[in-house]
């Protein structure tokens, strides 16, 4: 046994993917120490590598750099003292509820009688007695995840890892399950020393965890790490609670930067390229319309998430897009429409397209694409050529996504066209001459 405070330790962990000759950093120099008795939430926008980090911590995946120490010993292979609850439940559909739980025990070599007793006892504890012989497909999402929890608890793990365990459940069952887990945890009825939960819901993290580690993306790294000093059971309406959530929101939303930073460099040029957030224009329009109807055309971002019943990840993406296009500014956790944004929200389809086109032309990414197209014969270029060019800057999957995004935006603005049959992107005639 090591020192009590070094239960789990990550030392300068990094994860780099090599594609051809290019390298992409998913996680950069990440250090973290987890103590016994902690319930820690790992929070961050999608694509920040938090799920990868969880796989590194459990030993499912080895990091390309750095070390994972478990009780002061370096981790090799899967951590035998860890268990995991999956977002997708990961139950074996051909086994009954009880068989699913017993399977984990069978793998540890326990005799049949012990397995049977332990499984029944745990199913009873999570409130699944009566469903032992049911198959997962007969259960609701919430009940399935209970089986997932039961299976993980059954092996009495010292470290319980939760990978977005509530995000594929409906709101009500998610809430019930959260409360039940907290009850077991705070009541000391779990055999577990520490819980590590990956989530992208800010509210969920504040509701459940004692400590929140916030990650940033591109590349994934530690942004902040703070304690939540609220007593259990927590009340979402409580002012202290709201203050913490608001705080995290403003942390993640950042604030609008001056233009040259906001717009970033062109893909091939030096300096960081601004990624286009993964949003659809109809969603963006919806957000702007909502803000336009708000008092003073501004709103608190956390209140906005409540109003729109939207997950925080998606909302933050939308806000980023609004900022990038100059439709809104963010300041200390509040979002406010710019005059341009107000006009956009108030005008009709044609007017919106015009405004959008003007703003799109300012983006470095679009400028880069337009200059390539202009330099090509007949102002057209094959999709794969451009995707390959983007591959110098982005990971291949990301390159494709970014290109899909800019083409969708460009088509909406009527600046670009794309022919799916010949897979060719071309400039609309009006765009052909440089501005």
């Amino acid at each position, binding site marked *: 046994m090591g020192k009590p405070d070094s239960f789990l330790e990550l030392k300068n962990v990094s994860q780099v993917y090599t594609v051809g000759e290019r390298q992409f950093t998913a996680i950069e120099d990440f250090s973290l120490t987890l103590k016994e008795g902690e319930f820690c939430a790992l929070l961050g926008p999608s694509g920040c590598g938090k799920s990868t980090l969880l796989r590194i911590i459990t030993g499912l995946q080895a990091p390309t750099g750095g070390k994972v120490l478990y009780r002061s010993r370096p981790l090799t292979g*899967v951590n035998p003292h860890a268990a995991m609850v999956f977002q997708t439940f990961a139950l074996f*559909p051909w086994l009954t509820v009880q068989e699913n739980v017993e399977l984990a025990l069978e793998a540890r070599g326990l005799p049949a009688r012990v397995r049977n007793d332990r499984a029944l006892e745990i199913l009873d504890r999570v409130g699944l007695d009566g469903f032992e012989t049911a198959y997962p497909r007969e259960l609701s999402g919430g009940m399935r995840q209970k089986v997932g929890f039961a299976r993980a608890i059954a092996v009495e793990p010292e470290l319980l890892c939760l990978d977005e365990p509530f995000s594929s459940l409906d709101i009500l069952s998610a809430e019930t399950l959260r409360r039940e887990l907290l009850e077991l945890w705070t009541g000391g009825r779990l055999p577990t020393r520490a819980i590590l939960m990956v989530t992208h819901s800010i509210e969920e993290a504040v509701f459940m965890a004692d400590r929140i580690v916030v990650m940033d993306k591109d590349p994934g790294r530690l942004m902040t790490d703070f304690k939540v000093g609220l007593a259990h059971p927590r009340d979402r309406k409580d002012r202290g609670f709201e203050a913490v959530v608001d705080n995290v929101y403003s942390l993640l939303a950042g604030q609008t930067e001056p233009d040259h930073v906001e717009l970033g460099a062109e893909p091939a040029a030096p300096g960081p390229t601004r990624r286009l957030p993964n949003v659809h224009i109809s969603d963006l329009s919806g957000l702007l319309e909502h803000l336009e109807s708000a008092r003073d055309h501004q709103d608190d971002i956390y209140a906005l998430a409540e109003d729109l019943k939207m997950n925080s990840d998606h909302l933050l993406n939308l806000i980023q897009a609004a900022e990038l296009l100059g439709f809104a500014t963010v300041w200390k956790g509040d979002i406010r429409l710019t005059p341009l944004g107000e006009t956009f929200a108030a005008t009709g389809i044609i007017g919106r397209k015009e405004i959008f086109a003007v703003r799109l032309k300012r983006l470095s990414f679009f400028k880069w694409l337009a200059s390539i197209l202009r330099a090509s014969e007949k102002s057209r270029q094959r999709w794969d050529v451009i995707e390959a060019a983007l591959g110098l800057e982005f990971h291949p999957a990301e390159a494709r996504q970014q290109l899909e995004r800019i083409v969708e935006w460009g088509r909406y603005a009527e600046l670009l066209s794309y022919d799916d049959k010949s897979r060719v992107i071309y400039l609309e005639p009006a765009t052909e001459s440089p501005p």
Partner: protein
Amino acid sequence: MQQTNREFGPLAMLRPVSWGDGVVLLGIGVLLYAGVRLAMGAPEWIKGPEIHLTPEVLPYYLARSLGRMLAAYALSILFSLIYGSLAARHRTAEKILLPLLDVMQSVPILSFLPVVLLGLSAVLPRGLALELSAIVLIFTSQAWNLTFAWYQSLTTIPADLKEASSIFRFSPRMRFRKLELPFAAISLIWNSMMSWAGGWFFLMASEIFMTGNQDFRLPGLGSYLQAAANAGDLQALAWGLAALVGTIVLLDQIVWCPLLVWSRRFKLGTAEEDIPPASWFYKALRSSYLLTDLRGRLSGPFTRFSDLRKPRRKAGRIMTFRRFFERGGRFIFYGIGLAGLSAILYETYQAAQLLSGVPWSDWGRIGFGVLATSLRVLVSLIIALAWTVPLGVAIGTNRRLAAWLQPVIQITASIPATALFPIILLFVLKLPGGLEMAAVLLMLLGSQWYLLFNVIAGASAIPQDLKHTATLLQLSRRLRWRTLILPSLFPYIITGAITAGGGAWNASIVAEYVRFGGETFFTVGVGSLIAQATAAGDYPLLLASTLAMILAVTVANRLVWRRFYRTAEEKYRMD
């Protein structure tokens, strides 16, 4: 039984051309050459055993035939599990094993029959050689799709289930029993059914191969039918067919249907099927008290016993191969590969020498034969399309029609075309252009079902909302076919046609050259050339024409079908 999309849907079966294909084709050529070399030592005169035509011998013949099928199937399963696992787990192995599987899947297996038969009968006692070559031939018709199914299952196991097995530390054996096997179960059962159907086809052909002075006959159902047709004994023919159909239906009812119903528990999704498969036999088994009791008694001690053994079992033993491979073993592995490659190259040289003995006129005949056979394949495909598309669409879109027609078709389709061939000959051979007609008919019989099943699957997969839209828009019948039905069927038709084409090529070897009622009939074609070369003992010609056929099929698949397939994948996919 129902066809669901998973079984008959467009499979990703055509990969892009790679260097591996070249190696594989070369390897097959060399293998053939080795067979031909062996065959040169085959006795000139072979006489098969007397086939009796009294119905009393049928049970015995049936048992012999079933035994061959079972042996080949067991071999296929064993092969599939090993080969598929290797391909799925080792990157290096995958690069060779997959192209090999791909070519083997599309090669007309029947073209190997003469080489395998003659080759084996040169080195083994005759009875054993015949049995073995029949089993090998059936095996080659059963193994590939099973292997592919297993490989595909292994590589498509959901990541979360794999991670769960890792994090809960399953031993390799547990992983196999609780994850891999259940996940693959449905696909393995469907593919086993297809393999058995294919197996019957080849069983019939391998029991009744006769050329020139060589009369290869094995006592079995196939030879019984052949002999009955030869003698014009209609009563015996009826008995034989009844036995065959009865066996196939019985197997379907007491083996495959129950298995299918049982395997529904392994479905991954939560959605229920429209018409769940049903089996009276499975129901009877389930409700049998005797059986439940027996199972309890049998499995009780067994689980206790296996519990006792468990703690002592270690994962280490099973890991040894991998560890061996990762250490120095890799070099040994490459060494063997290198030795194999040089052997292939040497044999290629030898084969080329043998081929150089083929006169130019023969090459001309081969070219002409390939052309003629291609034409026949095309004609049979067109005929098949002409009737399967309307009928398939009718069945696929009309549930009431499907309910009573589907079982009938299942049974009809399960009668191997090769079993019907002697009967066709009996009636058609006397007509003008008889053999030509019989040949196309056999090709049709051997290929049309693949198309029909795919069309049915495609038609039943047309989304309901699109059908409603077409109705609301009041599209005319023609427009409806052009804009909705044909485009949605396209990927399925292509998949079906690729398999059907393979079936037709296969059939050409038994269809273009026949000995019937003491006379020999043949027509122009590469299948006929293979048979003629075998009859005349012209080994260079045998090698050349077999290679030509394999090459023709592979080239057609790669150049023609692949292009259609890509279009189907990209443009006409529903998702």
